[in-house]
């Protein structure tokens, strides 16, 4: 068959996946490769120090695999209590402040001026990560969990207000319109038209933020904002790896419990 003859011998190549222009494909992949070579080439690693460290690592690791909960149990307990209390208070305060800001940052319920003010608050709160904020708060309010509380509350505002505002903007407008048509005031509109639609998500997000705040509370202690991170930092600087191992086990266990609990609560409120 002549048709079969003309078909055979035709080449097929898989078309490129993402970048269709040949020029850009070569430029981007080539650029990425050049960057990698350069990045690895400029890595300044002190291999002798690493080799020394690896010898020591046996001792460090054995500390982590044989955690010692008892000898510094008071410190661990105090750090844990600080972490848990500041997580809870910061989440509660953060949520309470987030609700009005979140409503103000929703385009469909807030007037334009309020909208821009609230959006700027959110942008400021999200711009810096918790550690940087904690450094500033520690400098202003002194060492200890109060600075940690402020840090976490501040971070909660940026997180929660943004998501709440997005939820409010995504509601079913027909329900809100129906409430508006009954002659409801603005507050009644929020209470009847919007709250029922966003409440389950708001509870879910608050619980999720509680979970995140606990994780963060373990970190901001490193810059002096109290909590179990501070205890961990002290243990590490004392070369007390057994206690550090115990603290890590506690953190991992609590994070797992918190995550498990929070996913259950979120399922339950849906």
């Amino acid at each position, binding site marked *: 068959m002549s048709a079969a003859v003309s078909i055979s011998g035709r080449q097929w190549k898989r078309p490129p996946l993402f970048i269709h222009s040949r020029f850009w494909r070569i430029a981007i992949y080539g650029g990425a490769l050049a960057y990698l070579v350069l990045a690895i080439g400029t890595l300044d690693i002190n291999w002798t120090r690493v080799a020394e460290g690896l010898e020591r690592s046996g001792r460090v690791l054995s500390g982590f695999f044989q955690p010692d909960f008892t000898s510094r149990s008071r410190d661990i307990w105090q750090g844990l209590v600080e972490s848990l209390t500041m997580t809870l208070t910061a989440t509660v305060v953060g949520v309470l402040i987030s609700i009005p800001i979140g409503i103000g940052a929703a385009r469909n319920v807030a007037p334009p001026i309020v909208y821009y003010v609230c959006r700027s608050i959110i942008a400021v709160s999200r711009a810096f990560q918790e550690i940087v904020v904690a450094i500033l708060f520690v400098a202003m309010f002194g060492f200890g969990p109060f600075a940690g509380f402020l840090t976490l509350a501040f971070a909660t505002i940026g997180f929660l207000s943004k998501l709440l505002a997005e939820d409010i903007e995504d509601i079913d407008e027909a*329900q809100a319109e*129906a*409430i*508006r048509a*009954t002659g409801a005031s603005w507050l009644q509109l929020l*209470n009847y038209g919007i709250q*029922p639609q966003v409440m389950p998500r708001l509870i879910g997000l608050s619980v999720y933020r509680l979970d995140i705040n606990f994780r963060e509370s373990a970190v901001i202690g490193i810059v002096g904002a109290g909590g179990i991170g501070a205890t961990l930092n002290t243990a590490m600087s004392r070369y007390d790896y057994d206690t550090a191992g115990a603290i890590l086990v506690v953190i991992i266990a609590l994070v797992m419990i918190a995550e498990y609990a929070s996913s259950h609560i979120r399922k339950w409120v849906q």
Partner: protein
Amino acid sequence: MLRIEALEKRYKTGDHALKGVSFTVQPGQVVGLIGPSGAGKSSLIRCINRLVEPTGGRIFLGDVDISAVSRSDLRKARRRIGMIFQEYALVERLTVMENVLSGRLGYVSFWRSLLRRFPQGDVDKAFALIERVGLSDHVDKRADALSGGQRQRVGIARALEQDPELLLIDEPTASLDPKTSRQIMRLICEICAERKLPAIINIHDVALAQMFVDRIIGLKAGEIVFDGHPSALTNDVLSRIYGDEDWNAQRKAQDEDAQDAAAVAAFEIDRARHLEQV
């Protein structure tokens, strides 16, 4: 009585939705508003309670010029106008009772509504309305647990809970099956007759409109092209409203739906009998 004079609506996008619409609705009169999509039906009824701000013309409900009331008086104006929505627009996570009581929001204070402490008179009225629309067994069910027809009954009860002087009804049967559609239309018309309520029903199903309403207004591209008794709605008029092709297509679709047509006929006989009894 509702009087609309030279109503204009031009959206910011440049759409000229309403071009000087004027008409008057007498007490107890049920008006069907028909026309192709984009003719301005939805804009028209939303201008009446100012969910959409009109850009010109006047709207009188009784003696009040709704188009001129201030923002603060708008609340009082809106509570005199009940509205029933396409796709029901119930607050889905609230119960049937809360949805019906939300019709009183224009009357009660924020704190009362927040604590769900409505005056007993409002609650009595709500019970009566829920019974009237046949949902007595579902008072405490959440709205999203109801079927489409039941939800629209809640929507009707919510509108009536306002003690309205006018009903605005936006495509009440758009998402219902033919049988439920007729039940809902019959319920609306019965209630309007009982209470001498004027109503404007925005409806795309011409056959259904002809079956129930007292008067039909045909809207095309923001202008009234027909205003009269349903029986005056000839094929010529309908072609003028919908355009030749669209109308024939719609009619063909209806012809093909033979079962539906038969049901319509059966219902008309039923309705005639019903009217004779009354």
